[in-house]
């Protein structure tokens, strides 16, 4: 079976790859494009560690086929910092110690950025519901929620 040739945009840059029909977008990102920031936790859409956006929509990349992103625009954790300058969410995660092992962190950052793009001033409850599909087994979530709220506040002041 011949491989599928896919042309797409990843973090604003044109990208192309060859994949099998059954390869997930997560497989492609990690194994073909060496973008290993997106993590595989469950592989079944429950944990959110593989969160990316496709055409601006937050999804689990383990539940998207690589072949589906032909002509789409994919944003991953690798596109979050501007060179050496961390995104406010990234800085606040460090400041608030909102991570321990770090496996869930890329997915949570991508998901939180997607929330703040839609809602720059979320309530704590809105943050908790939005991130309900991002599991963390270390932090107990509280520091994550505080970091997201702090980043939101800083981003509102800066804008």
């Amino acid at each position, binding site marked *: *079976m011949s491989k599928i040739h896919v042309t797409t945009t990843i973090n604003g840059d044109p990208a192309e790859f060859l994949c099998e029909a059954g390869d997930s977008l997560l497989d492609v990102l990690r194994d073909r494009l060496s973008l290993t920031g997106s993590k595989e936790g469950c592989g*079944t*859409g429950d944990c959110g560690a593989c969160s990316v956006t496709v055409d601006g929509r937050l999804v689990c990349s383990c539940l998207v086929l690589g072949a589906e992103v*032909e002509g789409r625009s994919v944003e991953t954790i690798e596109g979050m910092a501007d060179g050496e300058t961390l995104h406010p969410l990234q800085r606040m995660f460090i400041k608030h110690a909102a991570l321990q092992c770090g496996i869930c962190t890329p997915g949570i950052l991508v998901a939180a950025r997607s929330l703040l793009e839609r809602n720059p001033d979320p309530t704590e409850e809105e943050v908790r*519901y939005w991130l*309900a*599909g991002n599991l963390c087994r270390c932090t107990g979530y509280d520091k994550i929620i505080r970091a997201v709220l702090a980043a939101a506040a800083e981003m509102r002041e800066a804008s």
Partner: protein
Amino acid sequence: MQYLSPTTIEEAVRYLAAQTGDCRILAGGTDLLVQLRSGLAEPESIVDIKRIDDLHQISREDGGWRIGAAVSGAEMGEHAALAADWPGVVEAVNLIGSTQIQGRATLAGNLCNASPSADSVPAMVAAGAVARVVGPDGTRDVPVIDIPTGPGQNALARDEFIASIFLPARPERAADAYLRFIPRTEMDIAVVGCGVFLKLGEDGTCADARVALGAVAPTVLLVEDAARALIGTSLDDAALDAFAAACSAAAKPISDKRGTAEFRVHVTGVLARRAALIAKNRAGGAAQ
């Protein structure tokens, strides 16, 4: 495995008809990709219907709404006019999974997956929704209640798929509601689900009602006895008691790790009563 991405319904129908082995339709993929990964599904080909522009539309039709099979739950939730007309259906869809799942999961996919606990299905049945099924012999409109035939089984022929779901015009003084019980606040599967549609007369009494139950039988249940207990009443306590009892009596659940059969029967009545009151208030009845 072959990946096909047609750009028209006709092309998709041709692809599907031409497949001799197992062929699966890919819409949101939130069930299919999990099945692929676990080996539960090993299709020879996948037809991705998301490149078909028509299937991404939420459009007005005969005073109601036609929702394409590729429309995600998030897109339904963001559609203010749809949510105003059929809040119960939109809430039911939006209860499925996480934000990430909402970005992909579809109404038609939830229906075709035919899980007994599918949240959107009782809400669609209460709303009187109709699925538009396409295949090589043309188009047929099938009431949503007739699509699931058992857990994981549906009434579609192997060369058919659902192109859209139609929600009829919502009558004056009418509304719907959906409630489900899960043991936590998010990210779980319904222990019981209940969709209610009510239409009130000018005097505020109940002129029409439909109630549908999920997760308490192999397929969704439309409980006509329970609806009759409400019609003609002012939705007073006695009527609601009879309604709840009829819903509980219709429930034929199994016991599993999420709840015992006895618990599910009880919760069925509790949810049905609460959903009926929400629908009543939305339809313009006095607040309780």
